């Protein structure tokens, strides 16, 4: 069995990981790195529960080999904020009841965080469009959209305070 050593920056911290090439990124994160915030849902690139950021862009980690992250940077939900200081998107999901069962939430939040990084003032349509690759089976889309809007507003206020 072929094992390769890779260096990947995980939530800002360089990590050296041993992986078999066929190991999917989502399994590397959950089973090798021991971070279970990234969920494995459909395993067929459909649901987006396994969404992480690869060099800042959202990707479905069930359709990426762990070894492909060698030399790159990944962000999982564990790296989004701190329990003491939540990311505005996390706060938004809390304030606006953006989750019911919570299974899709890590992926939703990472996709939303990447959207707001790119487009700080999205319309409702922009938000719906951005999360169209992330499925929520509790049918909680209305509140998810409100959560992202809440986060956008919070981030704008923050910028206004600092300006």
């Amino acid at each position: 069995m072929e094992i390769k050593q890779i260096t990947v920056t995980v939530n800002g911290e360089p990590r050296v990981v041993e992986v078999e090439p066929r190991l999917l990124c989502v399994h590397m994160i959950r089973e090798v790195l021991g971070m279970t915030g990234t969920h494995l849902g459909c395993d067929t690139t459909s649901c987006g529960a396994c969404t992480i950021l690869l060099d800042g862009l959202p990707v479905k980690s069930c359709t990426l080999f762990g070894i492909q992250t060698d030399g790159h940077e990944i962000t999982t939900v564990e790296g989004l904020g701190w329990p003491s200081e939540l990311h505005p998107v996390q706060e938004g999901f809390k304030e606006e009841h953006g989750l019911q069962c919570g299974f899709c939430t890590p992926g939703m939040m990472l996709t939303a965080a990447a959207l707001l990084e790119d487009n700080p003032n999205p319309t409702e349509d922009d938000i719906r469009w951005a999360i169209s690759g992330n499925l929520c089976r509790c049918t909680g889309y209305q509140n998810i959209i409100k959560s992202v809007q809440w986060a956008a507003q919070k981030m704008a206020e923050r910028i206004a305070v600092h300006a």
Partner: protein
Amino acid sequence: MYPPRFHYEAPSSVDEVLQLLAMYQGEAKVLSGGMSLIPLMKLRFANPSCIIDVNNIPGLDGLWEENGKLRIGALVRNRALIRSEVVRARYPLMASVAPQIADPLVRGRSTLVGSLCHCDPQGDWGAVMLALGGEVVAVSSAGERRIPVADFLLGPFQTSLRPDEFAVEARVPAPSGQPFGVYHKLERKVGDFATVGVAVFLDRSGSSVTRAGIALTGVGGTNIKVPAAEEVLVRGGVDDHTIGEAARLAAEVAKPQTDQRGSAEYKRHLVSTFVTRALQAAIGREPIDIRQRRFENVGSRV
């Protein structure tokens, strides 16, 4: 789902890719976006001995116009195509199809060249490149081949790319006059394959059509080009009569099959409707599809 075991290489130059392809003699697969290849491997439909990950090769993500061609490198993602100013300004058919492929996360990884090489009968880029008269640039240790897309897409998941060749680029002829293009796609939900897709392209000088392209998705073993309909438009321009003829000819060559997405009859009807709708829009009779307008609005942010 774990795919079967494979050996992994991540070369940093095209030359290294070619050496590996020659060495593995058809047992290696090139990995770019991986949005089709990785699912195939997970389902054990593909079982390559070696994966050649080309994502770290510099220079393959170029997207630019040169000598009357738009050149699209093997690592140009759908996301980059959607955001490209040159594509949005001069290649309306490409700008129309790109946001309709899969979902935003998949579009961040998936590539145009990879889609052609994968050659799914329901791949949207195949129809668009047939309509535009595009070509694939394939290199091997023996040299370079430029393969018209019409000769590249052979059948379901079959292309004329040789096992020792690496498709480094796709090229599209630049429009000489006023380009028009639209891709109509019916999908049951975001990310689904097309029930039916129709690509329509026109290059016009005044009221005359200098070049026309019509091609279909999801209604045959591979994407289908409709030269007879194209000829009608180049000869007669776009009017009620030629629109009717083009729609009829396109529906005639479609070979749809009844499946969970719809009956053969329904799909054939859709081909005719989509060709009509696109050409009516070309002469300002039909508003561009409501979904197309939405793509324009969010264009730079998709």
